[in-house]
């Protein structure tokens, strides 16, 4: 299973590390395609521009030999396994390259009966981190260009993969920007907090990128697309935007795996992962539950127990 932990704290992750992971992924992908364990592998291919990569569904050995892993491999590929997006699974068992944070989505999707473990071959990536948005993409990962979520990553070592690519190494002593920001917002008086989100949501253009990349937004009929009757205003105006984001935060509570994809893709820089983290904190406090650490029968919000905390009913 997982590679032996070789925990190094460093101040930069050099391209050589990603190259080693790349080699391991290629080797494994080629093998499982050759021996027909899988019909395809969801992984990453390099982009045209320097320091970019994009998701790819590879089905041949030649393509598999081009797969990469670099700090540009930011996407959570599990979105391609949900029925709302692609449903590549229907063709047979599929291989998928998954970082620790992406594995949480896979576990969550299994919990929700969207995926079966035996239909997947998971190539786990022992991941030191990926690029943040709009940073210098030179190949070396440093404190200056690492993604916010990676600063506080607890899943560098993927658990429960079929194989793991890489050894453990991570950047040392990173400031937990997200935690600090969350603490700052929690300390605000309610009116100020409301104003903070109002300001952010007023910029939302309803491009729905946040919904479309989320592995848990797999509903075929989203409440927000419905206009007869209309539940949430679909035009990008402050009131409807606020409603949409509240609905979304509630729908993701107890389910969101924390991949921060929604935040990464937002063209308007709305810090959506703060909402996700806040909801996750509620779930932890109320139900001692953390989504996506391992598949479970039912999440706490999908079942009723007599001894559930009811103190929130006022």
């Amino acid at each position, binding site marked *: 299973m997982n590679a032996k932990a070789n925990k190094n704290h460093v101040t930069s992750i050099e391209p050589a590390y990603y190259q080693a992971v790349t080699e391991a992924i290629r080797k494994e992908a080629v093998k499982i395609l050759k021996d027909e364990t899988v019909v395809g592998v969801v992984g990453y291919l390099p982009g045209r521009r320097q320091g970019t990569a994009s998701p790819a569904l590879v089905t041949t050995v030649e393509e598999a030999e081009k797969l990469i892993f670099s700090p540009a491999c930011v996407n959570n590929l599990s979105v391609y396994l949900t029925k709302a997006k692609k449903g590549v699974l229907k063709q047979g068992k599929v291989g998928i390259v998954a970082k620790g944070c992406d594995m949480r989505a896979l576990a969550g999707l299994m919990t929700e009966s969207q995926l079966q473990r035996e239909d997947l071959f998971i190539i786990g990536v022992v991941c030191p981190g990926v690029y943040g948005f709009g940073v210098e993409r030179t190949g070396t990962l440093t404190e200056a260009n690492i993604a916010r979520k990676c600063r506080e990553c607890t899943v560098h070592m993927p658990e429960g993969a079929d194989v793991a690519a890489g050894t453990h190494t991570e950047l040392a002593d990173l400031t937990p920007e997200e935690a600090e920001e969350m603490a700052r917002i929690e300390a605000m008086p309610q009116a100020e907090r409301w104003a903070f989100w109002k300001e952010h949501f007023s910029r939302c*253009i309803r491009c*729905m990128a946040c919904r479309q990349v989320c592995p848990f937004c797999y509903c075929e009929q989203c409440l927000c697309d419905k206009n007869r009757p209309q539940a949430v205003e679909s*035009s990008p105006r402050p009131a409807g935007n606020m409603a949409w984001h509240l609905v979304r935060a509630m729908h993701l509570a107890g389910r969101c795996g924390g991949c921060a994809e929604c935040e990464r893709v937002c063209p308007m820089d709305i810090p959506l992962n703060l909402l996700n983290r806040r909801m996750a904190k509620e779930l932890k406090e109320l139900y001692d539950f953390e989504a996506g650490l391992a598949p479970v029968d039912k999440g706490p919000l999908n079942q009723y127990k007599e001894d559930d905390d009811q103190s929130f009913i006022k």
Partner: protein
Amino acid sequence: MPQIITEQNLRNLIDLLVKEAKLVVGPKLSGSVVLYEPLTAGSDLTLDALPRRSSKELFFPICEDILSYKRENGSMKVTDVDRSQFPEAVLIGAPPCDAGSPAILDAVMSWDYKDEFYLERRRKSTIVGIACTKGDDACFCRAVGLAPDAEAGSDLFLTPLKDGSYACKAVTEKGEALVAAHRNLFAEGAGGDPVPFVDQGVGKLDLVKIKKWLEEHFEDPLWEKIADICVGCGACAFICPACHCFDINDEGSTDDGVRRKHWDACGFAKFTNHASGHNPRDVQNKRYRNRIMHKFKYYDGKFGKTLCTGCGRCIRACPVGIDIAEILETINSKQD
């Protein structure tokens, strides 16, 4: 006669226009992003970064009311939006990939149906374009027939000079009128050396050849290849200076509400979903194909223009790294 304007006078010009009760819109830092927003003073203008969304929203807002309705004494009263109230506007600091967009969109907005909301704003606006010196490897304006110093769409065109001032060229009567009305801010003379432009990663594209290939490849494995990874959001269309799809929704109650026009995108699964339930573009590959076809074939066929200014915004923003310039290069290099 060529003119120059110093940076300070450019900011003074904005101050004056604001005083004249004009709506002045330009790149402005808004939170962590630069957007085209109303400027309240010359000091608001920032020319450091390409705004995240294009300037089309000055003419084609994200969302606008087009009428309101109210039931009174059993009958419905409908009130139109008074378009004569739209303000006189000056768009300032738009690079060629943005300034050029209305020149493309006018065609579709004044075709069989005249979109008076868009057209009224166009009539009342003056565009001050600026030569672009800050492109990156997603830019490809040259490849689609524009250039970092293309004047298309601008009424007045500014070229940044190495000494920090700008060379000005009045391209249209609107531009001349703007200079004439604020003559004291401009000085005569050709100015010094222009700031050099950035190289672009994409070579010249043969748009005629690309169109021909598209005509012959409505069905092609390429569409599946792209659509396999496209997640079907509206990001690419919403931030595009040339995309102009919109939806109309009545919002409110059956007794009292507003009809609104707001952005739509061919990436969305419900784009072209008919009331019958039939959807001619029911899967993602048909929708992404529509995006390329519309930009490089249909629009050209109908209006003789390419529906893309090469701004690269969709490339930078696509959540899954779909690169329209790369797709065009692929098509451009195809032999059949």
